[in-house]
């Protein structure tokens, strides 16, 4: 194997394009390891960490494209790899039609498209703040998808946005639907009278999907970024958006979604909730029920519960906490009995492999207090995944966290990370696999297909040991999503995967199966 590198100066491509390209080329015969990236500090560190950097890297700038590959030259040449890179990038450029004029700066874009009112920023984090500042100065609303933006910059930019009466959604804001237009990762849902402000991406997606499935629709869905409700930012964007929905004649019911906020921020939100005439449904996942009720708002026990309550309030119907299942209890019992009967006595462990961060959070909150679950988002420090004893125990992972996405796309874009975890973390001791499948704009073309492929392989592998396994999933998607909800569910069910109507119900069914397992036959 030899290490070879090649550099193309002044040729900029976005990170997702290059990460997907790297993954394609890694499959080539004769390639042991390979990285294609822009010469940013982050990528250079990554290449050094992988042993893929040479002295060529000393002069790289963020505008230079590099290819670094460990190859067996008897099988594949560096020239062939360079040609493959060029082909891929040319094809990607050709997919744009001729009419796609691409200005080179925000200023020229604004001249080209007068009346622009929203700027979507997903450039690398260290360059994002300057672009956002320019957009806000030009009086434009911003959705900032980029992560790795310093909290001081976030505060400064949000203060400026509030001063100017603008939205500054983010950083690390994954989802929004403004005036019916889904931005970044969002599901295709009908328009309606329920407005959502969310500080957590897939949590917000799950609520909008459930509202759509219940027959109602969304007026506006505003993302704030995960840090907004922390002390440093003070909920600037949650408050700005909440007040906008209160004033919006198109919104009759407001839903707020977040992990538990800083108490001082929660207090501000409760104060606004108390003094507003519209019903407010709040899911501060694991948040303070009493304080929410005292503010005259409606507390929730899950994302699905939030959607159900919002719909019932809108329709003027009575509501209570939704703790159970859409299917009758007797049917759930039959499913549990049938599934547990598949398992051998040495199959005891849970593998919950999530691509959606908030869905993983919800699973941890609903399950983590009843079972010892090792996780990268543990409920207590001793349950951190690093402390997993000899690989044995229950595991729940948020595979979208930074430690799993360094140098590779988020698993909602590219399911490969989860495919690898299926291979490395599921074995003859696994009893239950719990997964999410997130459809919608931004997501992979067929996430259900990727899960189905992995489960098929696991079934084959376990059947040689005379074993079977329980696989439970939910699909965060609608009939309007391009991946097609019905098709996705069918793809999963063909492999014997039980598809529940929500993440909360999938988690609850997992709990029932595990309880039944522990009770024994």
């Amino acid at each position, binding site marked *: 194997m030899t290490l070879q590198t090649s550099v193309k100066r002044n040729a900029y491509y976005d990170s*997702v394009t290059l990460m997907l390209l790297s993954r394609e080329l890694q499959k080539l015969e004769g390639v042991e390891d390979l990285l294609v990236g822009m010469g940013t500090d982050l990528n250079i560190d990554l290449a050094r960490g992988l042993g893929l950097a040479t002295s060529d890297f000393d002069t790289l700038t*963020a505008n230079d494209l590099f290819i670094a590959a460990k190859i067996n030259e008897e099988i594949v040449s560096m020239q062939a790899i360079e040609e493959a890179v060029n082909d891929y990038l040319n094809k990607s450029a050709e997919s744009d039609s001729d009419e796609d004029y691409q200005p080179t700066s925000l200023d020229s874009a604004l001249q080209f498209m007068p009346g622009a009112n929203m700027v979507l920023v997903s450039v690398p984090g260290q*360059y994002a703040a*300057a672009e956002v500042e320019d*957009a806000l100065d030009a009086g434009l609303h911003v959705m900032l998808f980029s992560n790795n933006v310093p909290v001081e910059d976030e505060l400064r930019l949000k203060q400026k946005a509030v001063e100017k009466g603008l939205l500054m959604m983010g950083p690390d804001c994954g989802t929004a639907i*403004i005036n019916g237009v889904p931005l970044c990762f969002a599901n295709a849902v009908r328009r309606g009278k329920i407005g959502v402000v969310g500080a957590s991406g897939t949590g917000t997606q799950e609520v909008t999907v459930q509202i759509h499935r219940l027959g109602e629709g969304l007026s506006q869905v505003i993302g704030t970024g995960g840090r907004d409700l922390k002390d440093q930012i003070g909920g600037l964007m949650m408050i700005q958006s909440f007040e906008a929905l209160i004033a919006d004649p198109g919104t009759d019911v407001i839903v707020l979604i977040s992990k538990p906020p800083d108490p001082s921020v929660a207090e501000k939100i409760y104060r606004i909730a108390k003094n507003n005439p519209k019903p407010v449904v709040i899911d501060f996942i694991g948040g303070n029920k009493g304080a929410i009720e005292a503010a005259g708002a409606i507390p929730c026990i899950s994302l699905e519960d939030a959607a159900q309550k919002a719909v019932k309030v809108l329709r003027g119907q009575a509501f209570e906490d939704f703790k159970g299942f859409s299917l009758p209890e007797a049917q759930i019992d039959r499913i549990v009995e049938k599934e547990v009967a598949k398992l051998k006595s040495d199959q005891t462990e849970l593998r919950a492999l999530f691509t959606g961060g908030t869905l993983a959070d919800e699973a941890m909150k609903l399950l983590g207090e009843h079972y010892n679950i090792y996780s990268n988002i543990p409920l207590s420090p001793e349950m951190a995944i690093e402390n997993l004893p000899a690989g044995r125990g229950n595991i729940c992972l948020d595979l979208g966290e930074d430690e799993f996405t360094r140098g590779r796309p988020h698993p909602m874009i590219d399911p490969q990370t989860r495919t690898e975890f299926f291979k490395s973390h599921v074995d003859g001791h696994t009893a239950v696999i719990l997964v999410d499948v997130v459809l919608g704009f931004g997501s992979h073309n067929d996430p259900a297909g990727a899960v189905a492929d992995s489960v098929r392989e696991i079934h084959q592998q376990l059947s040689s040991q005379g074993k079977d396994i329980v696989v439970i999933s939910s699909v965060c998607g609608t009939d309007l999503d391009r991946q097609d909800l019905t098709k996705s569910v069918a793809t999963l069910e063909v492999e014997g995967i039980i598809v529940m109507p929500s993440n909360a119900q999938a988690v609850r069914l997992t709990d029932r199966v595990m309880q039944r397992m522990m009770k024994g036959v």
Partner: protein
Amino acid sequence: MSVNDLFKQELKVVNLGLKSFYSDLRTQGVTTVHVNWKPKAGGKKNMLNLLNKLNKIK
């Protein structure tokens, strides 16, 4: 333009960064433009700081 004014308008989006977001918007028929963005000053911090200072003077 306030947030509530935005709610009354057709959304027109300038996309800086991941091209797939632009493609999704185009597919939906949203008025949008993709900026052929690259880091200013070759992404070099010193040069960027200098540029930002110059812009502020302007």
